[in-house]
């Protein structure tokens, strides 16, 4: 991943931000707000991943269009009938509502993608390790084992291929299933046998002998607190200003966006602005050399 200023903040700061961004995105139906959320999410995702996210963005487009078009089929409220499908009216209002829903869906997906890129597993553990120690240890162990098992699975596939027991393209489904199960079985043996060693290693290092503490890789700094306060303030403004509701059916009724909208935009731009600021500072400091 690229260097990103917001990702360097404490996991708590990151988490609270995404909680707000995704929470607002889910609930608010106002088209301007939805648009802002989509733009903010897409911008930050682009800054995070660069061209790599192009496929994801392009792949999402038809889905969103489809969703907008498909929704009015099940929502017949509305005054302006465009045409009828299967004897049911397809209304302009319902189409607008469908577009709004598709927008919400898109915003949610975008922010979740950003969330996945920023809140890596170790940040999650840092946040919840204290609250759910056993589960977070379990998650960490699973994350460690998955790459191992995938690699071993490939090893087994190769090994079986080299003695003529490989599963290829031209085998029947039954053969593939049987072959796959054989590999799965071998992999299970291997993994379970290894698990004994892992358990011994844990016990040898004192697992379960004392009340565990946790190593903290991240620390809340003054900057974190400041950003957190700023985020909470903006979020409070968004809620206090109101005017986020919008009605589509049976009649379109959209309030004019007020200063709450500005607060919302500022909130969503936080990570992108931080990213931009860092890039500028870096460019300036390089040019001084």
């Amino acid at each position, binding site marked *: 991943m690229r260097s990103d200023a917001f990702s360097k903040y404490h996991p708590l700061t990151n988490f609270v931000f995404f909680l707000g961004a995704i*929470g607002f995105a*889910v*609930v608010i*139906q106002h088209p301007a707000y939805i648009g802002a959320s989509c733009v903010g999410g897409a911008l930050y995702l682009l800054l995070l991943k660069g061209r790599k996210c192009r496929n994801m963005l392009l792949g999402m487009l038809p889905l969103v269009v489809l*969703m907008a078009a498909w*929704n009015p089929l*099940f*929502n017949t*409220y509305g005054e302006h009938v465009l045409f009828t499908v299967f004897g049911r009216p397809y209304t302009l209002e319902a189409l607008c*509502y469908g577009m709004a*829903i598709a927008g*919400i*869906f898109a915003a*949610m*997906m975008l922010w*979740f993608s950003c*969330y*996945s890129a920023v*809140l*890596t*597993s170790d940040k999650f553990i840092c946040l919840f390790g204290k609250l*759910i*120690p*056993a*589960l977070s*240890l*379990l*998650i960490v*162990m*699973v*994350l460690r*084992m*998955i790459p191992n*098992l*995938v690699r071993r*699975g*490939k090893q087994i*596939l190769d090994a079986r291929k080299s003695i003529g027991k490989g599963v290829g393209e031209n085998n029947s*489904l039954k053969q*593939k*299933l049987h072959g*796959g*199960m054989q*590999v*799965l*079985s071998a*992999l*299970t*043996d291997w*993994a*379970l046998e290894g*698990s*004994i060693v*892992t*358990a011994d290693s*844990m*016990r040898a290092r004192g697992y*379960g002998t004392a009340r565990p503490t946790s190593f903290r890789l991240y620390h809340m700094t003054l900057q974190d607190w400041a950003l957190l306060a700023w985020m909470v303030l903006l979020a409070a403004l968004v809620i206090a200003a109101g005017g986020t*509701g919008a009605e*589509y059916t049976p009649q379109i009724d959209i309030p004019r966006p007020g200063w709450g909208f500005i607060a919302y935009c500022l909130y969503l731009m936080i990570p992108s602005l931080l990213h931009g600021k860092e890039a500028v500072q870096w460019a300036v400091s390089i040019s001084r050399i």
Partner: protein
Amino acid sequence: MKRSVCINLFTWLILIPLTLFLGTRLTGRWYYLTSTLVIIEAMLPFFFSFETRKPQARELVTIAVLCALAVASRVVVLIPNFKPTTAIIMLSGIALGPEAGFVTGAVTAFASNFFFSQGPWTPWQMMGYGFGGFFAGVIFAKRRAWRNPAGLALFGFFTILLVVGPLLDCCTLFTTGSRLSWSYAAAVFIAGFPYNLQHALACGATMLVFGKPLLAKLDRLIVKYGMMDARKEG
């Protein structure tokens, strides 16, 4: 034991009804937020009792291995769209008990999304998979006689087709719909049916072929290393 009963009662009798009550007060699309919150709250008692039990190293590692296997199995069995994942979760519930089965399912869903992407579906997947493991444990954990391949396969097939699949479809329903209506719900479930059927077939087939062997392997491990004794001591 007492405390976990309290937590269960609290969740089901107070927390979830309260969420539902408050949720309906919201305007607009209250149902996605509310339903997701309810799903998360419903998982809390399981997690709480797992945490307070302070699982032993061997139990923890065994659950971890089964979770990792459930994720990795998608890579190993080279048939497109064929996911033995849920079958492995159910077998974990059968061998280690309903609660461990639930944890296996929930953690599998959560951890695998670190490799794909977390999304609005994460809590639903956790609940769906977790329920699969839990339910399998409830039915089979104490009934060794019922564990024949056909029984396991039928159980897997129908649980996925009728419970886990539709539960995952609910997530689609709540995230993509503009208005809750029976016709829209029917459309989502019908659209999801072929996928669920495929999933159910994969689960059933895995249970049929792999169910008994995996249970035997786990039993062997439990006997060989006295895992159950360790649990009783702890």
